[in-house]
């Protein structure tokens, strides 16, 4: 219980203001010292006083004892009375001495100063033992306490009587009380003075602190224009008189330190008279409190300078954000909600700003977003930049378009965030597509001989079938149902085959959609094979397919992949032709296409035994308009387009080649 009280008091003390702490601490110390002094002084003074008074009483008694012996022997009691009365009533002594009486050898009272009957109790109350020269006792006389001091009266060696001096204890108490009052009064005065001084000191110390606290409060409320100087009485001038305040680009020696000099501010600082004797930063003079105030003032001024700079900077970057030519988003790294978007984003994506904010970014870009956000997060919270080219985004109304996306981690309003800048590259993509298309058309032209041949075969077969049928009809011959069925079935098969070739052609020539789809990688390979396989055979190049079964799909476009494989096999054929053409007898060439799954990658390899690629050109073969071929119709775009397509599908294209032996292109795509 008591402990709780103490704890409560301690807590109160802790919570109280500094001023009160100082104040009460000093006060408590002074009070304790005062009490100790008071008690000591009381002890010393009061004891001394009582001793002194007792001594006075004894002295009175001795004087009377000396002078009264004659009267006692003469039995001159009136003189004795007169003596003791004079002694008792001598000026201020009369208050101290409450009675004096003289008794004889038998303790019978000879004279006393009382004006009332002598109390019998007093007579024998304090007898001096035979060997003593005095005896002091405190006892009650009537209604008051008295110190009875008994002094023997001697004549020669014999005792002839005793003097009793009664000291009024009330009077002693009064004296003690007076002493105590005076002393306590003095101490109280000291305490009051200390109280006032302490109060002043505490106020002096805490007033600036309170003021600072007040200013800090103002600052924390965002009011940075608090008047600092009103009571400090110094003229700091208008803030705009500070060059660094007026122009945030001007560095301040105090604020920027040595950097200012490095940044070329030396000139300004060295020559500007304002800065040489800065009117805004205070020199820290005076006592600690004043220094604190100055330091605080300086801090505020720095904050004001910083704030101003920050505001300018913010303004600058805000304008970049607001009027930037590309859409910029700020995205929450956890839920991917859009926190902020600039007007350009609104314009490009077609949503209003209100619609954008709070919308998950993945809604704008469903594909791969998680992946690159993840990679961004892996790079750390504060830095990291991810560039994501040709990302497919959707405008309002689910209209897709391509963007190049740059994402990096930033801190936005104190929270980690991701800033995304997207550049609309749809137009470029379309140009690409057109280029691809043009290239495809070129390929088609190149393929036309093979295709024509390919179409010719079913046509010939149909022709033969129909000729046979027509001949049988002309000769009026019976066509055995078995034969008829065989011919018709064969014709139908050949029509189907032709139709398939045409379909393949059509699909090859079709312009690809923007949106990728799940594609079985074997399909485009088979399509290409069906288009060019026969033709290659005519050129004595055998094309072998080794397609894996159950390979997962990838995200791509079927006809673009056809183009990829078409370009690759065409290049292979060219390489083989180049090699075989130099050889006698034109030996057969071989192209092997294999597909398989390798981890989470779907891999397709195109291998030939052609001339190979020299190390000198290996780095260049993916560059556009690079060609080793002599024919003027080849524009050297084939491999460049191939590489571009593979990269569009986040795939990889690797090349291994041995000059004179062959080349292998290895394509790998992520499993969808």
């Amino acid at each position, binding site marked *: 219980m008591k402990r709780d009280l103490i704890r409560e008091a301690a807590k109160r003390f802790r919570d109280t203001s500094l001023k009160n702490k100082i104040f009460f601490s000093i006060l408590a110390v002074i009070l304790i010292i005062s009490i100790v002094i008071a008690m000591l002084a009381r002890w010393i003074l009061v004891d001394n006083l009582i001793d002194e008074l007792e001594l006075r009483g004894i002295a009175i008694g001795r004087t009377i004892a000396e002078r009264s012996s004659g009267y006692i022997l003469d039995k*001159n*009691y*009136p*003189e*004795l*009375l*007169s*003596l003791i*009365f004079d002694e008792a*009533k001598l000026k201020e002594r*009369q208050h101290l001495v409450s009675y004096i009486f003289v008794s004889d050898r038998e303790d019978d009272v000879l*004279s006393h*100063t*009382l*004006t*009332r*009957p*002598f109390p019998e109790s007093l007579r024998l109350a304090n007898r001096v033992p035979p060997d003593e020269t005095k005896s002091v006792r405190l006892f009650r006389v009537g209604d008051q306490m008295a110190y009875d001091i008994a002094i023997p009266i001697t004549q020669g060696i014999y005792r002839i009587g005793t003097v009793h001096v009664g000291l009024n204890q009330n009077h002693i108490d009064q004296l003690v009380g007076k002493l105590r009052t005076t002393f306590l009064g003095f101490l109280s005065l000291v305490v009051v003075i200390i109280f006032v001084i302490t109060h002043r000191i505490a106020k002096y110390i805490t007033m600036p602190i309170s003021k600072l606290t007040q200013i800090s409060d103002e600052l924390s409320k965002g009011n940075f224009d608090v008047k600092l100087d009103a009571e400090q009485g110094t003229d700091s001038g208008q803030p705009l008189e500070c060059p660094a305040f007026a122009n945030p680009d001007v560095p301040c020696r105090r604020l920027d330190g040595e950097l200012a000099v490095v940044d070329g501010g030396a000139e300004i600082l060295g020559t500007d008279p304002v800065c040489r004797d800065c009117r805004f930063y205070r020199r820290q003079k005076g006592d600690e409190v004043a220094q604190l105030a100055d330091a605080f003032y300086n801090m505020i001024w720095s904050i004001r300078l910083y704030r101003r700079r920050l505001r300018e900077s913010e303004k600058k970057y805000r304008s970049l954000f607001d009027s930037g030519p590309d859409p910029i988003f700020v995205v929450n790294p956890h839920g991917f909600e859009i926190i902020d978007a600039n007007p350009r984003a609104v314009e490009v994506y077609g949503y209003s700003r209100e619609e954008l904010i709070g919308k998950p970014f993945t809604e704008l870009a469903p594909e791969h977003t998680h992946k690159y956000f993840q990679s961004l997060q892996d790079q750390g919270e504060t830095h990291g930049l991810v560039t994501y080219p040709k990302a497919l985004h959707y405008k309002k109304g689910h209209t897709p378009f391509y963007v190049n996306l740059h994402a990096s981690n930033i801190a936005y309003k104190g929270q980690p965030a991701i800033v995304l800048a997207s550049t609309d590259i749809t137009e470029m993509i379309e140009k690409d597509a057109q280029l691809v298309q043009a290239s495809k058309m070129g390929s088609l032209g190149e393929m036309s001989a093979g295709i024509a041949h390919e179409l010719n075969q079913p046509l010939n077969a149909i022709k033969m079938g129909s000729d046979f049928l027509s001949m049988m009809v002309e000769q009026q011959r019976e066509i055995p149902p078995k034969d008829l069925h065989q011919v018709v079935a064969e014709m139908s098969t050949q029509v189907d085959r032709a139709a398939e070739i045409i379909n393949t052609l059509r699909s090859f020539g079709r312009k690809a959609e923007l949106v990728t789809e799940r594609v079985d990688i074997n399909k485009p390979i088979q399509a290409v094979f069906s288009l060019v396989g026969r033709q290659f055979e005519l050129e004595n190049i055998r094309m072998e397919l080794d397609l894996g079964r159950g390979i997962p799909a990838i995200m791509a476009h079927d006809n673009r992949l056809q183009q990829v494989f078409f370009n690759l096999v065409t290049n292979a054929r060219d390489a083989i032709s180049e090699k075989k053409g130099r050889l006698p007898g034109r030996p057969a060439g071989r192209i092997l296409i294999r597909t398989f799954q390798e981890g989470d990658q779907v891999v397709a390899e195109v291998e030939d035994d052609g001339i190979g690629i020299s190390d000198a050109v290996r780095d260049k073969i993916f560059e556009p308009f690079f060609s080793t071929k002599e024919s003027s119709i080849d524009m050297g775009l084939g491999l460049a387009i191939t590489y571009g397509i593979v990269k569009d599908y986040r795939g990889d294209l690797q090349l291994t080649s041995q000059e004179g032996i062959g080349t292998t292109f290895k394509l790998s795509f992520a499993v969808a």
Partner: protein
Amino acid sequence: MSYLNHVNEQGGVHGRTIKVVAYDDSYDPPMCMANTQKLIIDDQVFALFCYVGTPTTVKVLPMIEEARIPLLGMFTGANALREPFSRHLINVRASYYQETGAAVRHLIDDLGLQKIAVFYQYDAYGFDGLTGTELALKRFNLAPVAGGSYNRGTLDVQEGLNKIMASGAEAVVMIGTYDPCAKFIRLAHEQGFRPLFYLVSFVGADELARRLENQHGITVVMSQVVPPPDRLDPSPLLAGPDGYVTLLKRYFPEDQPNFVGFEGFINARVLVEGLKRAGADLTRQAFINAIESIHDLSLGLGINIAFSASDHQGLDRVYFTRLANGQFSLIKDWADIKAQLDASR
């Protein structure tokens, strides 16, 4: 005493008779003190009355203060009984200051005397008279030309006389008792020193007159605080049924009316008046309050007694008498004295 007897005979005051317990202190202060203690403790008196003498009375003042007992009608005009003011001390007569003051004024104004010496008893009484004289002279920017003294209870006046004679004083203010004063006057006269002798009331007119019976050609003036109680005066205060002369003749037929007796008579009148006014429930404080309520008690012969809470002296008047034909009689005209003085030179 005669008045108190008379009052007791009439049935006392509020049914109480007044008993007087008297002790002789022989004009010895310690004795007086012992007697006072005895009166207070052993006799348990209600009040102290008619104490005689300055040193004796002054001596017992502390005891009176402590005992808080009223003391009324002291035969002394000592200033110590008046200042500092004490509630328990009730004076009736005028003070020595008043006596000497009035005397000095007469000596200077009426008789044109300048050189005034003081002969005094070397104790509280003498000092009081000396101080009064000095104060009075000071008002005229004068000081005593000489001072002579003697010890109480002795007759060693020669030394003082020599001093005063040497100063050539024209008047001698004497504050003493009758024996030394009579001796002083006699010796002065014998030695051809003939100034005006002025004595304060305490000296005792009749005793002095008797001792100076055979001296002629001396000028002796005495101040009194009561008028002369002339046995032939028809005033009711003296000759009335309860007058001083009547009652004295009745209770003490062998005694002659005198100043001291008359003063005592007046004191007794004040005492009885106070007791009457204090009412049936008599206490010391009530008695003092009663005395203080006497604002204007006219007894006749021009004696008006007035007290108040801050004034414990009933009378202020001073009467001057001169010695002629063996007795003191009221001075009617100071010019006669002046003439006599001039003649004696």
